[in-house]
């Protein structure tokens, strides 16, 4: 995906816990194949809408990713297998009827034999349902001329009006927040556990956002109406991130800082960093039960995280992680073990002085010589 995120220093996952968290996140996001496929599809859509014969061509259409796709925090969505991929269709439009713009985009997509059966009309976008793996929400947008910069206006079919938006500004803010960790980067002397594939560009903040979204899914599985919305969690994580290098520290500290920022009376207000007048958490005014659930579950999450950090055994840590993130933990633990055994076969497994299993034998770690566990 043509991401705006530059090469950021990645988590070195020096702890068992961090390594498992990294694997959980990799297991939740788009695979590299799905990612490549999504990119292929969105370039094709972009080409179709921008072709010379298209009535949209004169508006110089430009498609770019927004939301979790842009900031690389995708997670498998609720109750189904497909990913939501959010794309902005930028059009050089002045004042226009929002519904007419939505209809124009829809008509153009239906004019293509491939897209016709996939088209679904939504309130703020046109959805393309690609066979089972994901759907693409194409959100038309026009520049918000008075505000300038990357500010956009997006249509709302029900309100028959335009709403303010700034997806690029939000992503730029998130990117800036992520980069704080570069300052705190520490050099690991021993790489203890094998790094999973697909973790190359993950920053601690991106991992925290994915973990919070997964936690929300598990915690609110029976009460989805009370769950905090994704952008509120993402924004809170970004606001309270202080450059922790590893996902567990980052998650625990962010959650504890969020809890300390909750006012004793009234409610926490979460504003859009790219649009400070916009209260992303306004829903809590109308739904006090959802706000109460947020406050209670964040406190609960903090004490669960404190418990996870106390080392007992891998089995205990796994059970505690499963409470927060569900059965995906089992897969992460098994996958890590399989890779440890692979390292052993390749004679890359080592043991440090205190007995810690590492994947690089050598400096500070004695290699595990070939052996076969024997006996019943």
């Amino acid at each position, binding site marked *: 995906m043509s991401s705006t995120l530059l090469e950021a220093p990645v988590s070195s996952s020096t702890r068992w816990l961090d390594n498992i968290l990294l694997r959980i996140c990799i297991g939740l996001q788009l695979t590299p194949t799905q990612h490549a496929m999504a990119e292929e599809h969105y370039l094709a859509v972009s080409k179709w809408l921008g072709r010379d014969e298209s009535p949209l061509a004169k508006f110089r259409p430009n498609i770019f990713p927004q939301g979790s796709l842009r900031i690389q925090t995708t997670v498998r969505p609720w109750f189904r297998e497909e990913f939501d991929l959010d794309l902005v269709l930028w059009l050089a439009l002045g004042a226009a009827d929002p519904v007419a713009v939505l209809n124009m985009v829809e008509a153009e997509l239906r004019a293509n034999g491939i897209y016709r059966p996939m088209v679904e009309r939504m309130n703020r976008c046109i959805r393309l349902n690609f066979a089972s793996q994901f759907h693409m929400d194409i959100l038309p947008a026009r520049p918000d001329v008075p505000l300038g910069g990357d500010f956009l206006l997006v249509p709302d079919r029900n309100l028959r009006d335009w709403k303010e938006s700034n997806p690029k500004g939000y992503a730029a803010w998130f990117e800036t927040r992520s980069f704080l960790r570069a300052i705190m980067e520490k050099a690991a002397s021993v790489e203890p556990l094998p790094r999973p594939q697909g973790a190359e560009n993950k920053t601690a903040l991106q991992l925290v956002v994915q973990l919070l979204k997964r936690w929300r899914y598990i915690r609110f599985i029976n009460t989805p109406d009370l769950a905090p919305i994704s952008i509120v969690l993402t924004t809170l994580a970004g606001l309270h991130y202080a450059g922790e290098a590893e996902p567990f520290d980052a998650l625990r500290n962010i959650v504890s800082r969020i809890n300390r920022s909750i006012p004793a009376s009234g409610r926490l207000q979460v504003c859009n960093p790219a649009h400070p007048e916009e209260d992303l958490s306004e829903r809590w005014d109308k739904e006090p039960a959802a706000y109460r659930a947020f406050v209670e579950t964040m406190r609960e999450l903090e004490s669960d995280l404190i418990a996870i950090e106390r080392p007992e055994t891998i089995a205990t840590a796994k059970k505690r992680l499963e409470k927060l993130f569900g059965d995906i933990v089992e897969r992460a633990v098994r996958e890590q073990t399989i890779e440890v*055994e692979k390292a052993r076969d390749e004679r890359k497994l080592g043991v440090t*002085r205190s*007995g810690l299993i590492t994947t690089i034998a050598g400096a500070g770690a004695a290699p595990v010589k070939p052996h*076969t*566990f*024997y006996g019943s």
Partner: protein
Amino acid sequence: MARRTFEQPPIQMAQQIGRMRMVCPDFERTSWHNDLVRWEGNLQPTDASARYRIAVEYRLRRRPAVTVLEPDLKIHENGSAIPHRFGDGTLCLYLTNSGEWHPSMYVAEAIIPWAAHWLYHYELWHATGEWMGGGVHPAVKKAQTR
């Protein structure tokens, strides 16, 4: 791996003790009488794991015996017995008579890492219900797939 022959002389006890002091300085020698030595030390296979106190007893040319002193090893919550242990509770770390272990090797360099690796898989066995470290069961006489 190449089978070791008996031409290779065993490492003498004083050398075993010296190597342990160098490689595993936290292991304490609790006794030494001629050709019998005993060490105690702690191993923590991952940072999420318990710290195990183990004893290693080695009589020259014999099987080094590794015992977990604390915490007590437990059977699985599903009731199954702890895999890969001898009848006396010591850990089965290598295939007997395979050459994986030979008195020409250092206890500090082979047995201690194997014990840490055993403890890692012991915890994972509790976590997953499956021994994922491979190995051979004498009753089955067949290598498990890793």
